[in-house]
């Protein structure tokens, strides 16, 4: 079983966002593996432990992402690939990323590709399905369970709280939803081993792509912060009076009831 995981390095969920010169200020921020990609890494490791084969974790980004790839290796992935696009593209979009990944994967004979269903920074959820389409393989998004029997795959897909059981066959791309598994923490021996595991760094040239092939199809023209929410009114008095006042305020002042 040849399993690939698509991984993105993102801001820690506990970080607040600040702008400088109209861009997100990354200085001093903590970075993590995108939480949904962490489920993907865990699932790939569990699949390999039963089915055999290797887990390769792939990331598109700059060299900083090496840290998150090492974490995935420490969790138990076998090898990692960092496609360093920094020098070639400044404002790539989801098309750009998907194209790079698909180009890399096209001759790898991947049986199973697992990605997070969405990245918590750009939040579009496009890369997984786009990659599958480019590779000509089926994709199932937001899965919460995965079972493999030979080349037959049964997944449970979360659809806004309902769940659907779907059958498909390999090769297949799936995207991970929360609830798929409990990602493990890297163990100390895992961290030691990870240092020796292969981490290949590629440039676009290495996968026969040039800038024109990955020209983004959308453009961000402005980034801004939402207006800061002012702390509102904390009610006082007897509890039943507070509750009556609240209901009145919601009806007459806020007009939401």
């Amino acid at each position, binding site marked *: 079983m040849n399993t690939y995981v698509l991984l993105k390095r993102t*801001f820690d*969920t*506990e970080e607040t966002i600040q702008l400088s010169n109209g861009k*997100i200020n990354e200085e001093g921020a903590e970075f993590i593996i995108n*939480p*949904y990609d962490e489920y993907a890494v865990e699932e790939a490791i569990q699949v390999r432990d039963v089915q055999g084969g290797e887990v390769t974790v792939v990331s598109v980004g700059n060299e900083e992402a090496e840290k998150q790839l090492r974490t995935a290796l420490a969790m138990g992935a076998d090898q990692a690939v960092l496609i360093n696009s920094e020098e070639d593209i400044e404002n790539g*979009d989801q*098309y750009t990323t*998907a194209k790079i990944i698909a180009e890399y994967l096209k001759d790898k004979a991947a049986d199973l590709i697992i990605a997070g269903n969405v990245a*918590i920074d*750009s*939040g*579009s*959820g*496009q*890369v997984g*399905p*786009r990659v599958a*389409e*480019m590779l000509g393989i*089926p*994709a199932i*998004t*937001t899965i919460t369970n995965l079972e493999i029997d030979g080349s037959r795959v*049964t997944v449970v897909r979360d*659809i*806004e*709280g*309902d769940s*659907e*059981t*779907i*059958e*498909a*066959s390999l090769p297949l791309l799936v995207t991970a939803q*929360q*609830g798929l598994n409990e990602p493990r923490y890297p163990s100390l021996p895992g961290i030691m081993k990870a240092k020796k595991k292969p981490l290949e760094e590629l440039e676009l040239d290495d996968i026969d792509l040039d800038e024109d092939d990955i020209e*983004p*199809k*959308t*453009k*961000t023209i402005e*980034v*801004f*912060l*939402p207006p800061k*929410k002012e*702390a*509102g*009114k904390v009610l006082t008095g007897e*509890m039943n009076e*507070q*509750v009556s006042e*609240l*209901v009145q*305020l919601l*009806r007459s002042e*806020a007009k*939401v*009831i």
Partner: protein
Amino acid sequence: MSRKILVLGEVRDGSLRNVSFEAMGAAKLAAGSGEVVGVLIGDAVQSLGNELIHYGADRVVTVEDKQLKHYTSDSFSQALLAVIDQENPAGIILGHTALGKDLAPRIASKLSSGLISDATAVEEAGGHLVFTRPIYSGKAFEKKVITDGLIFATVRPNNIAALEKDESRTGEISSLSVEIKDVRTIIKDVVRKATEGVDLSEAKVIVAGGRGVKGKEGFEPLKELAKVLGGAVGASRGACDADYCDYSLQIGQTGKVVTPDLYIACGISGAIQHLAGMSNSKVIVAINKDPEASIFQVADYGIVGDLFEVVPLLIEEFAAVKQ
């Protein structure tokens, strides 16, 4: 500006979803003086055509096939691509729902087009259609334009105004026959877990519980309050991690990002990760024992008190007001 825009009307339990009418609102603006064409895909959807027209479509194209009874990426892609092929539109707009999130990137990739996901606003500026969308789960926003391909967007529920329903509007409803074949994923079973009818991402009112709810049973009064208000129940990561409720209810940077008219946070402290998922709600009410809880920093109205005392009183009061 004059552009032909397609809007996919999403059908759930035999009815059109509200987000489809909101997509229609966005499409009207995108179309300018051009035509808005509603698209309906399913096994029996013809009868919903007029409703799409009442909400702003100039005409409707339907694709019906028994293989389209349940959504699969392959079958719906084939149907929608056939409509795109026939209509040759300048743009496509649909809801950022489970279906939209799955289908739109597939179609965008197939057509080698850009796609703007999860738009919360749309405006025309300098000959371009500019979409606003949240990034970092609403901690920031970006304005985006499509530079190559179709004007293609999914819109977040509850953000873009639908047009007023006008039952006097009429339009042509035509059907397109599409041969659905080679569907590579087969649906074996669908289990309904979502709470009675109201979907979290589309709910106008959300009652959410945190660690302060203390256990599975603690969610009961919250469910009752949600029911009285016709809303949905949500939860913080703390409550989900403690196994008080299913992960599908989680609101936050991991989990769902919601923007209801009214968000009632019960026993939720207000960690950054949770605030990212709900702080753009129109009105926020916080109920917490701890007056220092950070949820009060974003709440429009706060009650410092025990949720197990406050929530039952609220249920009574709202029930009285509703009558």
